């Protein structure tokens, strides 16, 4: 039965949300422009409309969640993003896997923020909320899914599967067909980061609207500079949340996604990085304005630019224009037209309103002194914008191509081949500039400065920096000139900001946000320099094996091949690949596949042996275990020369929609991370099954010696058994197990093939020695000669190809990010108190 009520309710809520946002926007607008007598009427009407909107949005979310939670696979959204296997927290994540759900998430955060603004700022709410509600109307239109005059507006999450796939033959046979299960959340995204990263990132997206709305509202109502005070804490908050969102993405990429590191300069990453840079620049100039009435025009332009860039990045990642150039853009839902309209409407509205007010925006006449903080901040903001410009320029290549091709020119620009070097050659030097500026600029915060005083105050930090850097360079062996510069600049910023921090009087800790955040940024710069600049491939193939003959250049092969249980030396480690493992629900760590017997149900396997953790049997032989069959973990044992060792479990996932995806495993030390991932493992798909070659048939008696693959083997015994690897036999079954030992030099292997008679038919349950690539099947019992027949099969041994990279001092990067966040908290608190103080005056 199709549950149409819940979908209709959801669809109705979407329409109400859209209409009420439009109504609220108009009513808030009216509440600003009408005369004072009518204001309260319009205001309460507008507020009512906004709360209707809020309730409607919550109702949309409830309906969609209800559909996902109850597995109503007649709905396209549930079918394509969820499945019965998913635990609840991933059901929530499946919510924002699709475009519609992620728009919904954004809309939800806007509702939350709008409610906060409504209730914290009486003076501004009319004008600010008018802009807020207009943006909401645009966003709600993206999930509207209504067709007007043959134009489809938005894509609704409440579409039925049969309407989404009208051509599918199933629905022509039976329109009421409901799939039994959904496609599930992409296995690669089944990770706790998927639960927290998107909400954080979208909260970051949503918060950029608040300073923008204040700014536009200020320009509109003629309060050309008052908007800065309430907008500033929001801008800081937005920068913090967006920054955390970006870093979570970076950490997720580093830990799981195997994009080769924490930052890949993927267009989708860049699309968030650029607005963040401009946002950071904008609150710096806003702070300048708060302190000295300069840089108001710059602040306005930067605040507006941040929001426009957010819209632009939404357009880039959701319109399908990035196409091949990105690994993780959304699928195209045919929303590009609507997204473009959203972008253009707000761009032109903002430009129009800025141009109209430009002449009347107050500017300070006097030339800014080089010895003022304003000057240094302005240079810093300019640097941030140039950083953004460089990234944006290349990220927009696909846009140039489609504009030029649309105009009839031929354009086939492709992203720079070596993206890392293209971006970092500018970004790193800008980073150095920022470190120096943030170190020096801080000295101008506190007192009037002139050349003489500056010299006095800066000498100490510079000397200390030089001594410290020289020492660190000597210890960590840094000799490449650019890295020396980066390191010195970073240390200078740390030293200078620490000096400022220490000079703060007691009780003034609320002023420390800036210095702490700047120390964090400098540490990030140092951490990036070490972990990327000195990242070293340790899995170098030194065997001098075959290199293609046609190529005369010497290739540096960066991968190692490891055969099962054959040790191999890599750098200072002896490596052994020790087999495949899976994760079992309710059991910590990993369980080797050899101790499990597969069943017909891929998600439930049976324990062939007891599974023991900390001396306790956590799963007994014969228990049914819940596993995720798509994730295989390859146990790699590392042995150091001092005898100490550890195991890493890099993963390969057979992903339904993305093919095979490798995830690394990381050995974390304080001073460095050892990052290991697999480049290749055989036999991962059904098409690529193991081929067994039948090499021998033997007819032997108990006690006989024979050869398997040149190893000496012996048939020790043949016994009747009453269970099959943990599974009890059925009543009429007869099972006989042979015990064969194989002597492979250093190790002995035990093989126990079984001969089974069930329903008067003979069956063989062979046993495999994976290390030897040998399989033995018990084929026949000959009672008359007292002998037994065995068939021997051999195959290629299991192996993996692995790559290992050492990343030194990456922890400096992560601890730097923590400091930045702490700094933000302190600064937000200070600016918010400032706003509250002035509001309540």
């Amino acid at each position, binding site marked *: 039965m199709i549950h149409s009520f819940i979908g209709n309710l959801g669809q109705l809520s979407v329409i109400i949300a859209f209409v009420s946002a439009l109504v609220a926007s108009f009513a808030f607008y009216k509440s600003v422009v009408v005369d004072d007598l009518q204001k309260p009427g319009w205001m309460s009407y507008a507020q009512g409309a906004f709360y209707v909107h809020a309730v409607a949005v919550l109702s949309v979310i409830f309906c969609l969640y209800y559909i996902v939670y109850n597995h109503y696979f007649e709905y396209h959204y549930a079918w394509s993003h969820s499945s019965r296997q998913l635990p609840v927290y991933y059901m929530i994540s499946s919510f924002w896997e699709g475009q519609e759900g992620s728009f919904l998430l954004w809309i939800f955060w806007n509702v939350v923020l709008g409610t906060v603004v409504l209730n914290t700022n009486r003076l501004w709410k009319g004008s600010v909320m008018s802009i807020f509600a207009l943006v909401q109307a645009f966003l709600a239109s993206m999930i509207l899914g209504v067709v007007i005059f043959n134009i489809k507006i938005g894509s609704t999450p409440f579409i039925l599967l049969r309407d989404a796939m009208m051509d599918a033959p199933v629905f022509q046979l039976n329109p009421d067909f409901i799939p039994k299960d959904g496609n599930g959340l992409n296995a690669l995204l089944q990770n706790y980061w998927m639960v927290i990263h998107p909400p954080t990132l979208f909260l970051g997206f949503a918060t950029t609207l608040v300073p923008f709305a204040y700014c536009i509202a200020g320009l509109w109502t003629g309060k050309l500079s008052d908007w800065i005070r309430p907008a500033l804490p929001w801008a800081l908050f937005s920068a913090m949340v967006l920054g955390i969102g970006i870093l979570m993405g970076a950490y997720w990429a580093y830990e799981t996604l195997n994009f080769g590191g924490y930052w890949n300069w993927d267009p989708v990453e860049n699309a968030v990085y650029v607005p963040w840079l401009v946002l950071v620049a904008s609150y710096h100039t806003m702070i300048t304005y708060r302190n000295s009435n300069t840089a108001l025009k710059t602040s306005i332009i930067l605040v507006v630019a941040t929001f426009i860039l957010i819209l632009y990045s939404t357009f880039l990642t959701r319109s399908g224009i990035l196409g*091949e150039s990105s690994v993780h853009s959304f699928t195209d839902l045919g929303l590009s037209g609507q997204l473009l309209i959203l972008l253009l409407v707000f761009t032109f509205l903002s430009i129009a309103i800025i141009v109209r007010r430009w002449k009347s925006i107050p500017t300070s006449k006097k030339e800014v002194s080089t010895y003022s903080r304003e000057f240094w901040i302005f240079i810093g903001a300019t640097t941030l914008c140039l950083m953004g410009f460089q990234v944006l320029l290349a990220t927009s290549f696909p846009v140039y191509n489609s504009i030029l091709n649309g105009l009839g020119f031929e354009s086939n620009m492709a992203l720079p081949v070596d993206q890392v070097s293209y971006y970092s050659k500018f970004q790193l030097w800008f980073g150095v500039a920022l470190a120096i500026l943030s170190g020096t600029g801080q000295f101008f915060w506190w007192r009037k400065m002139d050349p003489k005083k500056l010299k006095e105050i800066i000498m100490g930090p510079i000397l200390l920096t030089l001594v410290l850097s020289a020492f660190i360079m000597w210890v960590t062996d840094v000799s490449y000139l650019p890295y020396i510069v980066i390191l010195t600049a970073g240390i200078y910023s740390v030293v200078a900001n620490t000096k400022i921090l220490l000079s703060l009087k007691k009780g003034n800790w609320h002023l420390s946000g800036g210095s702490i955040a700047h120390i964090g940024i400098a540490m990030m710069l140092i951490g990036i320099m070490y972990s990327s600049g000195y990242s070293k491939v340790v899995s170098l193939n030194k065997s001098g094996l075959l290199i293609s003959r046609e190529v005369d250049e010497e290739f540096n092969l960066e991968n190692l091949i490891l055969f099962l249980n054959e040790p191999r030396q890599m750098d200072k480690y002896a490596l052994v690949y020790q087999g495949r493992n899976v994760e079992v629900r309710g059991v910590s760590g990993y369980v080797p596949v050899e101790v499990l017997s597969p069943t017909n149900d891929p998600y439930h396997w049976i324990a062939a042996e007891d599974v023991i953790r900390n001396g306790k049997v956590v799963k007994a032989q014969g228990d049914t275990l819940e596993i995720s069959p798509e994730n295989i973990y390859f146990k790699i044992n590392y042995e150091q020369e001092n005898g100490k060792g550890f195991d890493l479990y890099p993963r390969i996932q057979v992903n339904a929609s993305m*093919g095979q995806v490798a995830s690394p495993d990381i050995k974390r030390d304080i001073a460095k991370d050892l990052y290991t991932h697999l480049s290749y493992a055989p036999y991962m798909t059904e098409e690529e099954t193991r081929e067994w070659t039948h090499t021998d048939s033997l007819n032997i008696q108990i006690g006989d010696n024979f050869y398997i693959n040149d190893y000496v083997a012996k048939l020790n015994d043949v016994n009747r058994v009453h269970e099959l690897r943990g599974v009890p036999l059925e009543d009429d079954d007869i099972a006989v197990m042979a015990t064969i030992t194989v002597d492979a030099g250093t190790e002995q292997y035990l093989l126990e093939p079984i001969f089974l008679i069930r329903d008067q038919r003979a069956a063989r349950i062979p046993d495999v020695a994976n290390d030897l690539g040998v399989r033995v099947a018990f084929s026949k019992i000959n009672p008359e000669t007292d002998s037994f027949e065995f068939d021997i099969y051999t195959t290629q041994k299991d192996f993996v190809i692995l790559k290992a990279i050492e990343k030194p001092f990456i922890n400096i990067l992560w601890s730097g990010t923590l400091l930045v966040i702490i700094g933000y908290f302190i600064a937000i608190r200070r600016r918010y108190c400032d706003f509250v103080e002035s509001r309540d005056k």
Partner: protein
Amino acid sequence: MKKSHILGIVVIAIAIGIIMSTAGDASSYVTFGKAMEMASTGDDNKIHVVGTLKKATDGTVTGIESAENKLSFSFTMVDADFREQQVYFAEPMPVDFLRSEQVVVIGAYQQELFVADKILLKCPSKYQEHEISISS
């Protein structure tokens, strides 16, 4: 001259520098014929070529030569002009390589051989949205 003017000039100069450097680093999508032409004129910039793997009449991929240690391989690729080209890649064969319906190689010619630094694959999704089976 005012300081703000100097600053403006510096910013514009840096911006121009960025644009020049971007234009210089930008790669392009070309065919093997064009790439060969570029290489013969001494232009050793890395380029993008889009194409497919060479397939025999029965649909199996042909022209794959794996190094003995499996750590590198070469394959035959057919570009948009149906020109065939042997491409060498100094990494293990990417998983799903043989299933790919489109390949983008990024690299340059070294004599007759195209050496790829990077391979991008487009694979058919197992869950094609319009393929829904009753059993699902």
